[in-house]
């Protein structure tokens, strides 16, 4: 069943100097529920821009993106924030956790935004930490954790909202190959276990190999139809 339907989207960035850059040039893509999809391509191919548009962080210059039936291009900013909170999980290359909070508080943060009761949020956060193998590190400040551990916390945080899709932008770029492989294995397990759709932007072969679906992007266009 189609979760995300992208039809003919383009994205043109206009610099302050007036220079126009076409980041995406007519993308058509359907992402189904439960996909473990990797968008691969060289730097500057438009992977991150596409991921930002799918995640309702950015809007296309033209074309339509239907996310679970919602037209992202025609939705007010405040409702897009709500959509991100309820339906999208993010995993960033640089982890992007809140260094002022502990691992468990980082996970709880999402549920606090969702106005879940504190007791329930703590219980869910503990279960997620255990699921990503970090139950002993819950009370640590995240900047005291290793890169792999921080990325696992980020995965747990992404799952905390109960999202339909997790968007992971180069999630293994800062990890060694073994840690990267373990992380992707964990994500695949969660993909199957929770039927959460995963979309990666990557040029890491490990990620591409583990993906169940691969989309190749070059110069803002999909190469493999």
């Amino acid at each position, binding site marked *: 069943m189609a979760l995300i339907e992208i039809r003919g989207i383009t994205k043109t960035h206009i610099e302050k100097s007036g220079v126009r850059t076409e980041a995406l040039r007519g993308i058509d893509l359907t992402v189904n529920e439960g996909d473990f999809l990797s968008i691969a391509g060289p730097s500057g191919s438009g992977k991150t821009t596409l991921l930002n548009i799918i995640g309702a962080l950015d809007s296309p210059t033209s074309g339509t993106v239907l996310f679970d039936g919602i037209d992202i291009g025609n939705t007010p900013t405040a409702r897009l*924030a709500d959509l991100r909170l309820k339906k999208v999980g993010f995993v960033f290359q640089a982890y*992007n956790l*809140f260094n*002022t909070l502990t691992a468990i508080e980082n996970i709880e*943060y*999402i549920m606090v*935004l969702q106005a879940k009761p*504190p007791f329930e949020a703590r219980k869910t956060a503990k279960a997620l930490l255990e699921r990503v193998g970090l139950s002993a590190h819950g009370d640590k400040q995240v900047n005291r954790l290793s890169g792999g551990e921080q990325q696992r916390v980020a995965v747990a945080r992404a799952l905390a909202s109960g999202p339909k899709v997790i968007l992971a932008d180069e999630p293994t770029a800062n990890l060694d190959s073994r840690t990267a492989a373990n992380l992707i294995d964990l994500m695949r397990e969660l993909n199957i276990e929770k039927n959460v759709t995963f979309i990666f932007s990557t040029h890491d072969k490990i990620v591409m190999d583990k993906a169940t679906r691969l989309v190749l992007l070059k110069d803002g266009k999909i190469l493999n139809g």
Partner: protein
Amino acid sequence: MLIFIKIAWRNIRRNFYRSVITISSIGIGFASLFFIRSFIDGADHQMVENYTGLISGHIQIHSKGFQDNPGLKKSIRSPLEVTGALVKASGITAVSPRVKEYVLISSAENSGGALLMGVDPEQEVNVTSLHKHIRSGKFVSTDGQIVIGKTLARSLSVGINDKIVVVAQAFDGSLASESYRICGLLDTGAEEMDKGLAIVTLRAADQLFVLDGKVSEFAVRAGSLEKTDKITASIKRSLDPLKYEVLSWKEISPSLLQWIQFDVAFSDFLLLVILLVVAAGILNTLLMGILERVREFGIMLALGTKRRQIVLMIGIESLILGLAGIAAGFALGAGSSGYFAVHGINLSSFSAALDEYYTGSVIYPRISYGYPVIYGTIVLITSLIVSIYPAWRAARLNPVEAIRG
């Protein structure tokens, strides 16, 4: 909400030195305000107490029109009517009936004009402190005695035990003349009194001016300065306004009131200046903090944090900084004001000028907890207002650009 308080609090801790500087600037500003206000209040209070305590009393009752056009013809003809009203009013600690008239005083060598005041010595000492300002000799106690200002004594070339003659027009229009022996010299520090005041007993003045029991005024001392307005109103209600005028110190000495109003306006101006400094400090801290945390706010927005939640979090940071600054400032302000309220601030090097304004050379700050509450609220509101701009900037960030840095 709790998570935003946590993040705000930990951000303050994370930037420890910057936060300490901000809290210190708020604290020092607030403490300065607290201390300056206490000092001004103390000085003003002393000024009024010294002025009213020296000669005027807190309240005066005259026949209608005496204040604008004093003279024996405006004497109170039924003193019992006034004392009856005073007995009914609560909060009065002492009353002194007086006779006042301008006279000519002559010595063997010279003569000069003065205000002659007839007082009942036993009652007067409870209303004013004139008796405490006798620098040589003693206060009047019998009818043949007179106290005169030290400068007047110098101009008449007289001293203790010398005789002087007082000449004036009596109530009945006849020439009044009497000689008195100087029993004391008055040294108030206020030149106006030291060169132009003479004091005899009430009975002596009554005989001199042929008053038959009439008096010029009743000077009243209230239980406290703060109760004066209430007592004045109460006495006014008991007396016929067509026959009597009941004046509080504010009406007796409008210039003193104006001076105090100037002091209040000055402290309000200081408040404004200090608030600007406080506002600049908080604004600087928050803006610096936001510039450093652009990426963090970008992530928050990406994860679905609402803009108003970002504004709330920055508001909480500002509130914490403001509250901590106010707490520190209160401790510092109350501590310093409290210490000097007991030990006083010795400004004897400005003694002459201070005496002229009845302040006295040692100022004792007066702590009023009403002002710190008002100032604290204003500082807190200011810190919240200045957080609006940085909060707005953070909330308007584009998450994609902010994360990209």
